[in-house]
Protein backbone atom coordinates (compact mmCIF):
# COMPACT_ATOMS: atom_id res chain seq x y z
CA UNK A 1 0.00 0.00 0.00
CA UNK A 2 1.27 3.45 -0.86
CA UNK A 3 1.73 6.14 1.71
CA UNK A 4 -1.43 8.15 2.26
CA UNK A 5 -2.33 10.83 4.75
CA UNK A 6 -5.84 9.42 5.03
CA UNK A 7 -6.02 6.00 6.73
CA UNK A 8 -9.36 5.14 5.08
CA UNK A 9 -7.90 5.24 1.58
CA UNK A 10 -6.10 2.14 0.39
CA UNK A 11 -3.99 2.34 -2.75
CA UNK A 12 -2.54 -0.87 -4.18
CA UNK A 13 0.94 -1.17 -5.66
CA UNK A 14 1.11 -0.37 -9.37
CA UNK A 15 -1.87 1.95 -9.26
CA UNK A 16 -1.66 5.66 -9.96
CA UNK A 17 -0.81 7.16 -6.60
CA UNK A 18 -2.97 9.73 -4.90
CA UNK A 19 -1.93 11.90 -2.01
CA UNK A 20 -4.21 14.07 0.07
CA UNK A 21 -2.31 16.90 1.78
CA UNK A 22 -4.19 18.58 4.61
CA UNK A 23 -1.79 21.52 4.93
CA UNK A 24 0.11 23.69 2.48
CA UNK A 25 3.34 22.77 4.26
CA UNK A 26 2.99 19.22 2.87
CA UNK A 27 2.98 20.44 -0.73
CA UNK A 28 6.72 21.16 -1.38
CA UNK A 29 7.65 17.55 -0.61
CA UNK A 30 4.97 16.25 -2.95
CA UNK A 31 6.16 18.59 -5.71
CA UNK A 32 9.75 17.46 -5.23
CA UNK A 33 8.64 13.82 -5.46
CA UNK A 34 7.01 14.51 -8.83
CA UNK A 35 3.36 14.46 -7.86
CA UNK A 36 1.03 16.49 -10.07
CA UNK A 37 -1.45 18.93 -8.46
CA UNK A 38 -5.09 18.00 -9.02
CA UNK A 39 -7.71 20.73 -8.60
CA UNK A 40 -10.95 20.13 -10.48
CA UNK A 41 -9.24 17.68 -12.79
CA UNK A 42 -11.24 18.49 -15.91
CA UNK A 43 -8.07 18.70 -18.00
CA UNK A 44 -6.14 15.98 -16.21
CA UNK A 45 -8.95 13.46 -16.67
CA UNK A 46 -8.26 13.51 -20.41
CA UNK A 47 -4.47 13.22 -20.18
CA UNK A 48 -2.57 10.09 -21.26
CA UNK A 49 -1.63 9.61 -17.62
CA UNK A 50 -5.25 8.80 -16.90
CA UNK A 51 -6.70 7.64 -20.21
CA UNK A 52 -3.90 5.47 -21.57
CA UNK A 53 -2.70 4.19 -18.22
CA UNK A 54 0.73 5.63 -19.01
CA UNK A 55 2.90 5.78 -15.92
CA UNK A 56 4.45 9.22 -15.73
CA UNK A 57 5.42 10.97 -12.55
CA UNK A 58 4.33 9.63 -9.21
CA UNK A 59 0.65 10.44 -9.44
CA UNK A 60 -1.66 13.19 -8.27
CA UNK A 61 -2.06 15.15 -5.09
CA UNK A 62 -5.54 16.43 -4.40
CA UNK A 63 -5.88 20.11 -3.53
CA UNK A 64 -9.43 20.07 -2.17
CA UNK A 65 -8.37 19.87 1.49
CA UNK A 66 -6.10 22.93 1.32
CA UNK A 67 -8.17 25.80 2.72
CA UNK A 68 -5.64 28.41 1.61
CA UNK A 69 -6.45 27.65 -2.02
CA UNK A 70 -10.16 28.23 -1.43
CA UNK A 71 -9.68 31.73 0.01
CA UNK A 72 -11.09 34.85 -1.60
CA UNK A 73 -10.38 38.35 -0.33
CA UNK A 74 -10.85 41.95 -1.35
CA UNK A 75 -8.40 44.53 -0.09
CA UNK A 76 -7.08 47.87 -1.32
CA UNK A 77 -8.81 47.58 -4.68
CA UNK A 78 -7.34 44.14 -5.33
CA UNK A 79 -9.09 40.75 -5.35
CA UNK A 80 -7.08 37.78 -4.25
CA UNK A 81 -8.55 34.65 -5.79
CA UNK A 82 -7.46 31.30 -4.37
CA UNK A 83 -6.29 28.93 -7.08
CA UNK A 84 -8.58 26.17 -5.82
CA UNK A 85 -11.74 28.20 -6.34
CA UNK A 86 -13.98 27.04 -9.16
CA UNK A 87 -15.30 29.33 -11.87
CA UNK A 88 -18.73 29.22 -10.20
CA UNK A 89 -17.25 30.20 -6.83
CA UNK A 90 -15.31 33.10 -8.36
CA UNK A 91 -18.46 34.38 -10.06
CA UNK A 92 -20.40 34.13 -6.79
CA UNK A 93 -17.67 35.95 -4.84
CA UNK A 94 -17.04 38.78 -7.28
CA UNK A 95 -20.77 39.27 -7.95
CA UNK A 96 -21.21 40.33 -4.33
CA UNK A 97 -19.43 43.63 -5.07
CA UNK A 98 -19.29 43.97 -8.89
CA UNK A 99 -21.77 42.05 -11.00
CA UNK A 100 -20.34 43.58 -14.18
CA UNK A 101 -16.70 42.67 -13.49
CA UNK A 102 -15.10 41.20 -16.61
CA UNK A 103 -14.38 37.95 -14.77
CA UNK A 104 -18.08 37.61 -13.95
CA UNK A 105 -18.95 38.22 -17.60
CA UNK A 106 -16.41 35.67 -18.80
CA UNK A 107 -16.61 32.90 -16.23
CA UNK A 108 -20.40 32.86 -15.87
CA UNK A 109 -20.61 31.93 -19.55
CA UNK A 110 -17.70 29.49 -19.67
CA UNK A 111 -18.28 25.83 -20.46
CA UNK A 112 -21.43 24.57 -18.71
CA UNK A 113 -22.95 24.77 -15.25
CA UNK A 114 -21.60 21.36 -14.23
CA UNK A 115 -18.12 22.17 -15.54
CA UNK A 116 -18.06 25.63 -13.97
CA UNK A 117 -18.57 23.78 -10.69
CA UNK A 118 -15.33 21.84 -11.23
CA UNK A 119 -12.90 23.94 -13.28
CA UNK A 120 -10.53 25.74 -10.94
CA UNK A 121 -8.67 28.98 -11.49
CA UNK A 122 -5.28 27.37 -10.80
CA UNK A 123 -5.84 24.45 -13.14
CA UNK A 124 -7.09 26.71 -15.88
CA UNK A 125 -4.03 28.97 -15.60
CA UNK A 126 -1.60 26.06 -15.38
CA UNK A 127 -2.93 24.37 -18.50
CA UNK A 128 -4.13 27.44 -20.46
CA UNK A 129 -6.25 25.44 -22.87
CA UNK A 130 -7.04 27.22 -26.14
CA UNK A 131 -10.70 27.32 -25.17
CA UNK A 132 -9.99 29.11 -21.88
CA UNK A 133 -12.45 31.83 -20.89
CA UNK A 134 -10.14 32.85 -18.07
CA UNK A 135 -6.87 33.65 -19.82
CA UNK A 136 -8.06 36.65 -21.87
CA UNK A 137 -9.52 38.60 -18.94
CA UNK A 138 -6.53 37.77 -16.71
CA UNK A 139 -4.10 39.07 -19.35
CA UNK A 140 -6.20 42.20 -19.90
CA UNK A 141 -6.27 42.73 -16.12
CA UNK A 142 -2.48 42.29 -15.83
CA UNK A 143 -3.08 39.68 -13.16
CA UNK A 144 -0.29 38.65 -10.79
CA UNK A 145 0.25 35.07 -9.59
CA UNK A 146 1.68 33.71 -6.36
CA UNK A 147 3.54 30.42 -6.77
CA UNK A 148 4.95 27.87 -4.34
CA UNK A 149 7.92 25.75 -5.38
CA UNK A 150 9.26 22.40 -4.26
CA UNK A 151 11.69 24.02 -1.79
CA UNK A 152 8.81 25.80 -0.05
CA UNK A 153 9.76 29.19 -1.49
CA UNK A 154 7.01 31.51 -2.66
CA UNK A 155 7.37 33.82 -5.67
CA UNK A 156 5.23 36.13 -7.76
CA UNK A 157 5.02 36.71 -11.49
CA UNK A 158 2.83 38.43 -14.04
CA UNK A 159 0.29 36.35 -15.90
CA UNK A 160 1.89 37.01 -19.30
CA UNK A 161 5.29 36.10 -17.93
CA UNK A 162 3.78 32.80 -16.76
CA UNK A 163 2.14 32.08 -20.11
CA UNK A 164 5.19 32.99 -22.16
CA UNK A 165 7.75 31.05 -20.18
CA UNK A 166 6.27 27.70 -19.21
CA UNK A 167 9.36 26.84 -17.19
CA UNK A 168 8.23 29.40 -14.59
CA UNK A 169 5.33 27.19 -13.55
CA UNK A 170 7.15 23.87 -13.76
CA UNK A 171 7.12 21.94 -10.52
CA UNK A 172 5.27 24.76 -8.79
CA UNK A 173 1.80 25.16 -7.36
CA UNK A 174 -0.25 28.27 -8.11
CA UNK A 175 -1.54 29.61 -4.79
CA UNK A 176 -3.61 32.55 -5.94
CA UNK A 177 -4.17 35.19 -8.59
CA UNK A 178 -4.51 38.90 -7.89
CA UNK A 179 -6.71 41.06 -10.09
CA UNK A 180 -8.06 44.61 -9.86
CA UNK A 181 -11.39 44.61 -8.04
CA UNK A 182 -12.86 47.23 -10.32
CA UNK A 183 -13.25 46.02 -13.90
CA UNK A 184 -16.89 46.59 -14.71
CA UNK A 185 -16.15 48.94 -17.62
CA UNK A 186 -15.30 46.12 -19.94
CA UNK A 187 -16.33 44.07 -22.93
CA UNK A 188 -16.16 40.30 -23.24
CA UNK A 189 -17.05 38.18 -26.23
CA UNK A 190 -16.68 34.44 -26.84
CA UNK A 191 -17.05 32.99 -30.33
CA UNK A 192 -19.19 29.88 -30.07
CA UNK A 193 -21.58 28.01 -32.33
CA UNK A 194 -23.84 26.99 -29.46
CA UNK A 195 -24.07 28.36 -25.94
CA UNK A 196 -22.18 25.53 -24.22
CA UNK A 197 -19.41 25.27 -26.82
CA UNK A 198 -15.83 25.98 -25.97
CA UNK A 199 -14.96 29.31 -27.61
CA UNK A 200 -12.95 29.38 -30.83
CA UNK A 201 -11.63 32.71 -29.66
CA UNK A 202 -12.38 35.28 -26.99
CA UNK A 203 -12.14 39.06 -26.96
CA UNK A 204 -11.54 40.96 -23.71
CA UNK A 205 -11.42 44.76 -23.72
CA UNK A 206 -10.65 47.02 -20.79
CA UNK A 207 -9.67 50.68 -20.49
CA UNK A 208 -5.87 50.83 -20.20
CA UNK A 209 -5.87 52.00 -16.61
CA UNK A 210 -7.83 49.02 -15.31
CA UNK A 211 -4.76 46.89 -14.75
CA UNK A 212 -3.18 49.56 -12.56
CA UNK A 213 -2.69 47.17 -9.68
CA UNK A 214 -0.45 44.94 -11.74
CA UNK A 215 1.27 47.83 -13.49
CA UNK A 216 2.25 49.34 -10.18
CA UNK A 217 3.70 45.97 -9.23
CA UNK A 218 5.70 45.83 -12.42
CA UNK A 219 3.33 43.66 -14.44
CA UNK A 220 2.95 45.72 -17.60
CA UNK A 221 6.58 46.72 -17.65
CA UNK A 222 7.70 43.17 -17.05
CA UNK A 223 5.62 41.71 -19.84
CA UNK A 224 5.75 44.62 -22.22
CA UNK A 225 3.65 45.94 -25.03
CA UNK A 226 5.45 46.10 -28.34
CA UNK A 227 5.37 49.02 -30.71
CA UNK A 228 3.96 47.95 -34.04
CA UNK A 229 6.15 49.79 -36.55
CA UNK A 230 4.03 52.01 -38.75
CA UNK A 231 0.94 50.70 -37.07
CA UNK A 232 -2.27 51.46 -38.86
CA UNK A 233 -4.69 50.76 -36.10
CA UNK A 234 -3.60 49.14 -32.92
CA UNK A 235 -0.98 51.35 -31.38
CA UNK A 236 0.95 48.44 -29.94
CA UNK A 237 0.79 44.69 -29.65
CA UNK A 238 2.23 41.66 -27.95
CA UNK A 239 1.48 37.98 -28.39
CA UNK A 240 1.87 34.73 -26.54
CA UNK A 241 5.35 33.38 -27.10
CA UNK A 242 7.06 36.55 -28.32
CA UNK A 243 8.86 38.99 -26.05
CA UNK A 244 8.31 42.71 -26.53
CA UNK A 245 8.94 46.19 -25.21
CA UNK A 246 6.80 48.84 -23.58
CA UNK A 247 5.26 51.88 -25.22
CA UNK A 248 4.84 53.64 -21.93
CA UNK A 249 1.92 56.02 -22.46
CA UNK A 250 -1.47 54.35 -22.35
CA UNK A 251 -3.77 57.28 -21.63
CA UNK A 252 -7.11 57.26 -23.46
CA UNK A 253 -6.65 53.81 -24.86
CA UNK A 254 -7.92 50.28 -24.41
CA UNK A 255 -6.27 46.95 -23.81
CA UNK A 256 -7.65 44.32 -26.18
CA UNK A 257 -6.78 40.67 -25.64
CA UNK A 258 -7.77 38.06 -28.17
CA UNK A 259 -7.21 34.39 -27.27
CA UNK A 260 -7.37 31.52 -29.76
CA UNK A 261 -5.09 33.25 -32.27
CA UNK A 262 -1.93 31.79 -33.74
CA UNK A 263 0.48 31.82 -30.83
CA UNK A 264 -2.51 31.37 -28.47
CA UNK A 265 -3.23 35.03 -27.73
CA UNK A 266 -2.65 38.57 -28.90
CA UNK A 267 -2.64 41.66 -26.72
CA UNK A 268 -3.21 45.01 -28.39
CA UNK A 269 -3.22 48.52 -27.09
CA UNK A 270 -5.77 50.41 -29.14
CA UNK A 271 -6.27 54.18 -29.20
CA UNK A 272 -9.64 55.26 -27.94
CA UNK A 273 -11.29 55.64 -31.35
CA UNK A 274 -12.64 52.39 -32.77
CA UNK A 275 -11.89 53.72 -36.26
CA UNK A 276 -8.21 53.11 -35.53
CA UNK A 277 -8.62 49.37 -35.96
CA UNK A 278 -7.33 47.77 -39.14
CA UNK A 279 -10.04 47.60 -41.78
CA UNK A 280 -8.36 45.51 -44.47
CA UNK A 281 -7.07 41.94 -44.06
CA UNK A 282 -3.56 42.93 -45.14
CA UNK A 283 -3.46 45.50 -42.34
CA UNK A 284 -4.25 42.80 -39.81
CA UNK A 285 -0.80 41.34 -40.22
CA UNK A 286 0.58 44.38 -38.46
CA UNK A 287 -1.41 43.59 -35.36
CA UNK A 288 -0.73 39.86 -35.59
CA UNK A 289 -4.42 39.10 -35.28
CA UNK A 290 -4.26 35.86 -37.21
CA UNK A 291 -6.13 32.63 -36.56
CA UNK A 292 -5.49 29.04 -37.49
CA UNK A 293 -8.06 27.32 -39.70
CA UNK A 294 -10.67 25.43 -37.72
CA UNK A 295 -13.09 22.72 -38.75
CA UNK A 296 -15.69 24.45 -40.92
CA UNK A 297 -14.23 27.90 -40.27
CA UNK A 298 -11.22 29.40 -41.97
CA UNK A 299 -8.71 31.52 -40.13
CA UNK A 300 -9.65 34.40 -42.40
CA UNK A 301 -13.30 34.14 -41.35
CA UNK A 302 -12.40 34.06 -37.64
CA UNK A 303 -10.12 37.05 -38.13
CA UNK A 304 -12.99 38.99 -39.70
CA UNK A 305 -15.40 38.10 -36.89
CA UNK A 306 -12.79 39.02 -34.28
CA UNK A 307 -12.23 42.43 -35.87
CA UNK A 308 -15.98 43.05 -35.94
CA UNK A 309 -16.24 42.10 -32.26
CA UNK A 310 -13.31 44.29 -31.26
CA UNK A 311 -14.83 47.23 -33.10
CA UNK A 312 -18.22 46.53 -31.52
CA UNK A 313 -16.68 46.32 -28.06
CA UNK A 314 -14.73 49.52 -28.48
CA UNK A 315 -17.78 51.35 -29.77
CA UNK A 316 -19.80 50.11 -26.83
CA UNK A 317 -17.17 51.22 -24.32
CA UNK A 318 -16.71 54.58 -26.07
CA UNK A 319 -20.46 55.12 -26.00
CA UNK A 320 -20.60 54.25 -22.31
CA UNK A 321 -17.68 56.60 -21.61
CA UNK A 322 -19.43 59.37 -23.58
CA UNK A 323 -22.61 58.91 -21.59
CA UNK A 324 -20.59 59.00 -18.40
CA UNK A 325 -18.95 62.27 -19.44
CA UNK A 326 -22.27 63.91 -20.40
CA UNK A 327 -23.81 63.20 -16.99
Amino acid at each position, binding site marked *: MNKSTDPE*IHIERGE*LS*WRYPQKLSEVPELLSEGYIPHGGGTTL*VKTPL*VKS*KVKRGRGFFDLSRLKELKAFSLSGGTCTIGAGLTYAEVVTNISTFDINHILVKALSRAAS*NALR*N*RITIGGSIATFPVWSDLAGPLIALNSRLKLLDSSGKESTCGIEEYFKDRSIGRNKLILYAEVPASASVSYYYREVRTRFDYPLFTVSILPSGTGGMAKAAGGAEATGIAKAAGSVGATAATSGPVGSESTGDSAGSYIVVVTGTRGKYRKLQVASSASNLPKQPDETEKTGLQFPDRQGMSGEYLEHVARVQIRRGLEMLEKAAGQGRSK
Partner: protein
Amino acid sequence: MKADFIINGRRESLEFDSRATLLEVLRNSGHREVKSGCENGECGVCTVLLDGIPVNSCMVLAASVIGREVTTIRGLTEDDDTGLSPVQEAFAEAGGIQCGFCTPAKVLVTYSLLSRNPQPSDEDIMNALDGNICRCTGYVKILDSVKLAAEKLKASGKESRKERGK
Protein backbone atom coordinates in the same frame (compact mmCIF):
# COMPACT_ATOMS: atom_id res chain seq x y z
CA MET B 1 -7.86 1.49 -4.53
CA LYS B 2 -10.58 1.25 -1.94
CA ALA B 3 -12.40 4.15 -0.33
CA ASP B 4 -15.72 5.28 1.08
CA PHE B 5 -18.29 7.48 -0.60
CA ILE B 6 -21.63 8.68 0.69
CA ILE B 7 -24.01 7.82 -2.10
CA ASN B 8 -27.63 8.88 -1.71
CA GLY B 9 -27.11 9.27 2.01
CA ARG B 10 -25.55 5.83 2.54
CA ARG B 11 -21.89 5.14 3.13
CA GLU B 12 -20.54 2.75 0.50
CA SER B 13 -17.07 1.28 0.51
CA LEU B 14 -15.98 0.79 -3.10
CA GLU B 15 -12.99 -0.71 -4.86
CA PHE B 16 -11.91 1.00 -8.05
CA ASP B 17 -8.98 1.82 -10.29
CA SER B 18 -7.26 4.98 -9.09
CA ARG B 19 -7.64 6.39 -12.62
CA ALA B 20 -11.39 5.72 -12.81
CA THR B 21 -13.91 8.48 -13.23
CA LEU B 22 -16.80 8.89 -10.83
CA LEU B 23 -19.11 7.78 -13.64
CA GLU B 24 -17.23 4.49 -14.04
CA VAL B 25 -17.19 3.86 -10.31
CA LEU B 26 -20.89 4.59 -9.88
CA ARG B 27 -22.00 2.43 -12.79
CA ASN B 28 -19.65 -0.43 -11.87
CA SER B 29 -21.07 -0.42 -8.36
CA GLY B 30 -24.65 -0.81 -9.55
CA HIS B 31 -25.73 2.81 -9.90
CA ARG B 32 -26.93 2.35 -13.46
CA GLU B 33 -29.36 5.22 -13.00
CA VAL B 34 -26.38 7.44 -13.80
CA LYS B 35 -26.32 7.49 -17.60
CA SER B 36 -23.20 7.37 -19.73
CA GLY B 37 -23.12 9.56 -22.83
CA CYS B 38 -20.26 11.43 -24.47
CA GLU B 39 -17.85 10.81 -21.57
CA ASN B 40 -16.33 14.15 -22.49
CA GLY B 41 -18.27 16.69 -20.43
CA GLU B 42 -20.37 17.82 -23.35
CA CYS B 43 -23.77 16.12 -23.12
CA GLY B 44 -24.47 16.28 -19.39
CA VAL B 45 -26.37 12.97 -19.09
CA CYS B 46 -23.96 11.69 -16.44
CA THR B 47 -24.63 14.63 -14.11
CA VAL B 48 -24.80 13.84 -10.40
CA LEU B 49 -24.83 16.15 -7.40
CA LEU B 50 -21.56 16.36 -5.51
CA ASP B 51 -22.29 17.87 -2.10
CA GLY B 52 -25.45 19.27 -3.70
CA ILE B 53 -23.74 20.79 -6.73
CA PRO B 54 -24.13 19.44 -10.28
CA VAL B 55 -20.98 17.96 -11.81
CA ASN B 56 -20.31 15.82 -14.87
CA SER B 57 -19.38 12.50 -13.30
CA CYS B 58 -17.43 11.58 -16.45
CA MET B 59 -15.10 14.54 -15.82
CA VAL B 60 -14.43 13.83 -12.16
CA LEU B 61 -11.76 11.39 -11.05
CA ALA B 62 -13.34 9.29 -8.32
CA ALA B 63 -10.21 9.38 -6.19
CA SER B 64 -10.57 13.16 -5.92
CA VAL B 65 -14.00 13.01 -4.30
CA ILE B 66 -13.70 10.19 -1.79
CA GLY B 67 -15.75 10.73 1.34
CA ARG B 68 -17.94 13.29 -0.41
CA GLU B 69 -21.73 13.10 -0.75
CA VAL B 70 -22.93 11.96 -4.15
CA THR B 71 -26.60 12.17 -5.08
CA THR B 72 -28.02 10.30 -8.05
CA ILE B 73 -31.62 10.42 -9.25
CA ARG B 74 -32.45 7.58 -6.83
CA GLY B 75 -31.41 9.79 -3.97
CA LEU B 76 -34.33 12.13 -4.58
CA THR B 77 -36.97 9.47 -4.06
CA GLU B 78 -35.73 6.79 -1.71
CA ASP B 79 -37.38 8.30 1.35
CA ASP B 80 -40.53 9.30 -0.47
CA ASP B 81 -43.61 7.02 -0.41
CA THR B 82 -45.01 8.34 -3.69
CA GLY B 83 -41.99 7.10 -5.63
CA LEU B 84 -41.50 10.38 -7.46
CA SER B 85 -40.14 13.67 -6.23
CA PRO B 86 -42.09 16.85 -7.08
CA VAL B 87 -39.42 17.71 -9.64
CA GLN B 88 -39.88 14.36 -11.38
CA GLU B 89 -43.66 14.75 -11.30
CA ALA B 90 -43.32 18.16 -12.90
CA PHE B 91 -41.19 16.80 -15.73
CA ALA B 92 -43.73 14.06 -16.39
CA GLU B 93 -46.74 16.39 -16.24
CA ALA B 94 -45.25 19.21 -18.32
CA GLY B 95 -43.93 16.87 -21.00
CA GLY B 96 -40.28 17.56 -20.31
CA ILE B 97 -39.55 13.92 -21.10
CA GLN B 98 -39.53 12.01 -24.34
CA CYS B 99 -36.95 9.25 -24.56
CA GLY B 100 -35.97 9.99 -20.95
CA PHE B 101 -32.26 9.38 -21.32
CA CYS B 102 -31.26 12.90 -20.31
CA THR B 103 -34.02 13.27 -17.72
CA PRO B 104 -32.26 12.06 -14.55
CA ALA B 105 -29.53 14.65 -15.07
CA LYS B 106 -32.01 17.42 -15.81
CA VAL B 107 -34.06 16.55 -12.73
CA LEU B 108 -30.94 16.66 -10.54
CA VAL B 109 -29.85 20.02 -11.95
CA THR B 110 -33.38 21.37 -11.43
CA TYR B 111 -33.43 20.06 -7.88
CA SER B 112 -30.11 21.78 -7.16
CA LEU B 113 -31.23 25.03 -8.81
CA LEU B 114 -34.51 25.18 -6.88
CA SER B 115 -32.68 24.47 -3.63
CA ARG B 116 -30.77 27.70 -4.08
CA ASN B 117 -33.26 29.71 -6.06
CA PRO B 118 -36.93 28.72 -5.53
CA GLN B 119 -38.20 31.19 -8.14
CA PRO B 120 -35.72 31.16 -11.01
CA SER B 121 -36.08 33.37 -14.08
CA ASP B 122 -35.95 31.87 -17.58
CA GLU B 123 -32.32 32.97 -17.76
CA ASP B 124 -31.51 31.33 -14.43
CA ILE B 125 -33.03 28.08 -15.69
CA MET B 126 -31.17 28.23 -19.00
CA ASN B 127 -27.90 28.95 -17.20
CA ALA B 128 -28.42 26.03 -14.85
CA LEU B 129 -29.27 23.61 -17.65
CA ASP B 130 -26.79 24.93 -20.20
CA GLY B 131 -24.72 21.75 -20.13
CA ASN B 132 -27.59 19.27 -20.37
CA ILE B 133 -28.44 18.43 -23.94
CA CYS B 134 -31.83 17.04 -24.97
CA ARG B 135 -32.26 15.79 -28.50
CA CYS B 136 -36.02 15.15 -28.24
CA THR B 137 -38.02 17.87 -26.57
CA GLY B 138 -36.69 21.14 -27.96
CA TYR B 139 -36.22 22.60 -24.46
CA VAL B 140 -39.49 24.57 -24.25
CA LYS B 141 -41.17 21.75 -22.33
CA ILE B 142 -38.12 21.45 -20.12
CA LEU B 143 -38.34 25.12 -19.23
CA ASP B 144 -42.04 24.58 -18.47
CA SER B 145 -41.13 21.56 -16.32
CA VAL B 146 -38.71 23.53 -14.17
CA LYS B 147 -41.28 26.30 -13.65
CA LEU B 148 -43.91 23.72 -12.74
CA ALA B 149 -41.48 22.06 -10.35
CA ALA B 150 -40.91 25.43 -8.66
CA GLU B 151 -44.67 25.87 -8.28
CA LYS B 152 -45.11 22.35 -6.91
CA LEU B 153 -42.37 22.80 -4.37
CA LYS B 154 -43.75 26.14 -3.31
CA ALA B 155 -47.29 24.80 -3.03
CA SER B 156 -46.29 21.77 -1.04
CA GLY B 157 -43.83 23.69 1.10
CA LYS B 158 -41.56 20.83 0.33
CA GLU B 159 -38.52 22.65 -0.92
CA SER B 160 -35.48 20.68 -1.87
CA ARG B 161 -33.40 19.82 1.12
CA LYS B 162 -31.06 22.70 1.87
CA GLU B 163 -28.25 20.45 2.98
CA ARG B 164 -28.04 18.98 -0.52
CA GLY B 165 -28.43 22.25 -2.35
CA LYS B 166 -25.81 24.93 -2.48
